[in-house]
């Protein structure tokens, strides 16, 4: 069937610059480029181009430009090029539209409508290069009251705290499964988390044996498919996370196509090689909040009450009520994943239309937990579209204890957000299991890039904290007075719990 889909991108090659080195041809797993020996020329099939820019980045002579195809369908606010493209695609395949990464629709990004405060005159700003500046954060349930006795004149703790995760910077790597991303990408995340004194999350794909040595900085996820969940997996983790929902696809389960289930992944996930790994939409042992409580306590019991248990949900309309239930069900951490949260594969319609922005969910959850007097009983971690250090610091000021970054971490490793993770052909060696592709990501380099990113963000957070006259991150957490909204409606301001700039 002739496809009516126009190429999304045009590949322009400067023939004068091109040295026929064929890097582009070798680098493109989508087979866009090929070299014709007879004509001594490189050609491109633009219909296959996904815009990942691998060829452009690696071309040694800058001979390539990839740009949006300017050919427009007749202007129409309703029937846009994207709408038509989707319809053609479905008319040609009869399938569900698939995509990768997070929602790319233009929903308001509230981070960009919130500005931060700085101290002047009445309160000196603090220079983090000369003064202490503390980002250390502990995740886990905090007691209502701490009893401290005296032994020999020195304080002696009488209240035992439940297990806590210690973060040297309030940024963790989001759940991304081995399967969705390559082993090298997993190793990079694990090593970077270890080096930075923070945590990465296995996602629902189990944990490769070789990565057990980073277990102290690993949050092991237990999802509805229970892939790779066994005693050793639980034992090796620093914390466990029950995945109920994901911001990219609230209400549905995961899908790893059989093509990505290699021998190693088969062993790690404990499923037959080459079979689709489909995790159910709900946990079939959790049909109500008390069932969740049972699983939380089962996991705690199985790990001798030595590890905090997180529950991750997608940000949806009633997140606040759900979060309250999760805290009361005994979770130590509530992880919220907003509508812009990424994924390896999700139905496009779900990714782009289900869920709410994380900023609103976070504000609602933090407010609700405080109203109910239980905010201290669990930490709140947010994910879904955290792009830079100012997003992090705004999230913390809105009430988060820490953030998860997924997409940003992948971008640090080379991802260009082409949204084709589900094809398994990631030219950057990240979202692929093809050994030819995945070896492109050197874990030493991946680790370094991730460590650099977190280091840079941490410095920026310190600068902004110091500017606000604050020298410990906990003094900003939930401190919404240090935020102001710009161009927001009163209702938005009320939900966010902040004032408008100028007020």
């Amino acid at each position, binding site marked *: 069937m002739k496809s009516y889909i126009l190429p999304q991108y045009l590949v322009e090659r400067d023939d004068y610059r091109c040295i026929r080195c064929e890097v582009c041809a070798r680098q493109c797993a989508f087979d866009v480029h090929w070299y014709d020996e007879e004509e001594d020329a490189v050609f491109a099939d633009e219909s296959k181009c996904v815009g990942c820019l691998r060829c452009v980045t690696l071309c040694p002579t800058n001979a390539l430009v990839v740009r949006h195809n300017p050919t427009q369908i007749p202007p129409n606010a309703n029937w846009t090029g994207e709408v038509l493209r989707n319809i053609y695609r479905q008319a040609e395949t009869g399938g569900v539209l698939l995509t990768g990464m997070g929602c790319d629709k233009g929903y308001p990004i509230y981070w960009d409508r919130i500005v931060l405060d700085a101290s002047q005159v009445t309160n000196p700003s603090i220079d983090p290069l000369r003064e202490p500046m503390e980002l250390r954060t502990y995740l886990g349930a905090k007691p209502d009251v701490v009893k401290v006795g005296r032994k020999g004149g020195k304080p002696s703790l009488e209240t035992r705290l439940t297990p806590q995760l210690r973060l040297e910077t309030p940024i963790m790597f989001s759940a991304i499964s081995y399967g969705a991303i390559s082993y090298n990408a997993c190793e990079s995340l694990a090593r970077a988390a270890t080096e930075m004194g923070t945590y990465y999350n296995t996602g629902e794909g189990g944990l490769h044996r070789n990565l057990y040595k980073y277990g102290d900085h690993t949050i092991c996820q237990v999802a509805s498919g229970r892939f790779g969940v066994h005693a050793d997996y639980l034992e090796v983790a620093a914390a466990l996370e029950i995945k109920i929902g994901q911001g990219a696809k609230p209400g549905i389960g995961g899908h790893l196509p059989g093509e990505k289930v290699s021998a190693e992944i088969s062993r790690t996930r404990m499923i037959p090689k080459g079979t689709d790994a489909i995790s159910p939409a709900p946990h079939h042992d959790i049909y109500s909040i008390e069932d969740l409580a049972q699983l939380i306590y089962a996991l705690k019991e199985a790990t001798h009450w030595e590890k905090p248990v997180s529950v991750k949900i997608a940000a949806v309309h009633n997140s606040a009520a759900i979060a309250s239930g999760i805290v009361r069900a005994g979770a130590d951490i509530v992880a919220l994943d907003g509508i812009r949260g990424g994924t390896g594969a999700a139905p496009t319609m779900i990714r782009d239309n289900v869920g709410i922005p994380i900023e609103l969910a976070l504000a609602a959850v933090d407010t609700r937990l405080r109203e109910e007097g239980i905010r201290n009983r669990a930490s709140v971690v947010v994910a879904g579209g955290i792009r830079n250090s100012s997003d992090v610091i705004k999230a913390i000021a809105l009430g988060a204890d820490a953030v998860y970054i997924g997409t940003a971490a992948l971008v640090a490793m080379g991802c260009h957000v082409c949204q084709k993770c589900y094809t398994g052909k990631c030219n950057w060696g990240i979202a692929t299991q093809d050994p030819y592709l995945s070896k492109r990501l050197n874990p030493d380099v991946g680790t370094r890039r991730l460590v650099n990113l977190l280091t840079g963000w941490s410095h920026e957070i310190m600068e902004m904290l110091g500017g606000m006259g604050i020298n410990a991150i906990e003094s900003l957490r*939930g401190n919404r007075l240090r935020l102001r909204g710009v161009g927001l409606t009163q209702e938005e301001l009320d939900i966010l719990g902040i004032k408008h700039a100028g007020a």
Partner: protein
Amino acid sequence: MLRGARVRDDKDFSGCSIFGMMNLRGEKFNGDPMITAIANMKERSNGLGGGFAAYGIYPQYAELYCFQLMYDDQAAKEETEGYLKDSFSLEGAEVIPTRSCEGVSDPPLLWRYFLQPRESIACDLEDVDDFVVRAVMHINVFIDGAFVFSSGKDMGVFKGVGFPEDVGRFFRLDEYEGYIWVAHGRFPTNTQAWWGGAHPFNILDWSVVHNGEISSYGINMRHLEMYGYKCTLFTDTEVIAYAVDLLVRRHGLSIEDMSRVLAAPLWSEIDRMPAREREAHVALRQSYGSLLLNGPFSIIISNREQMIGLTDRIRLRPLVAGRNGDFMYISSEEAPMHLVDDTLKDTWIPHGGVPVVAELIKPAAREEETGGKVLSISGAEPA
């Protein structure tokens, strides 16, 4: 005027002078030296607020709560008295005596009541103090034009708009005798002058005078709200008073541990502590991180037995301490201590985040004490 007419900044921003003076044996003295001392730091205030707290001034009613109230008008007074009569038995109600004084104008109606919860109510109460706190919160939040600015036993707060020395003379503090006195001169950067916004801030026996700005105010306030405190004044000082009440009275922390919450040691310091101490400090910071007071401050916290001086952990505001025999001083500056006590020699600058605690020597302890050595001062530098 009490509420509503004020600019709703996030909170008050102000610089200040603070002065505290205590006789460790509980021997009383009148308010004159306090007025002298605080007047000596005039540069630190701008005439928009001054106040005092005195302990031991109502011995005849020592077991009763003394509510001191500001009213905008008669209607607020009637409504408040109606509310109080419902649940308290009032043993005394009187106008707080004042004298006209240049520099102090437009005072609200100032009344004080000696009271206790009715017996029929008190016998059902788990904690009488909690009940009293709730009553104070109720009046301050729900009764328009009424404000309880003092609610302790055998103590009282006197504050208003003006320079502190004028406010002191206005309230005739020379006629009161107490063994702990604290004073405050205010330099608010918002020009709104409101009698209730002056320091000290008080709840039950706790009073706080404060120089500084708490950058963590937003989260301190939200944390306290979880425990039923309503921050109606939008002042840092109010937050400190509630935090102290929560930590010491309700959660049973010692003064030292409370100050370890308000001005927590740095993690790098905690990491170097011996295991048992480290464990306690880690737990305190983990659990009470939302009560860490971040930003520049020096404060004097007092109750009927103690006077405590504390600065923020990186010591961005001044605090000096001194002692002379039974007298203990805590001040923004050293000069006023010498001004009121010309034989004072022993003064020192406390470390940031380390409390100076002056504690009343109880009669029983007095006998054990030897050689006139004051055992009760901690946080002192080696002489």
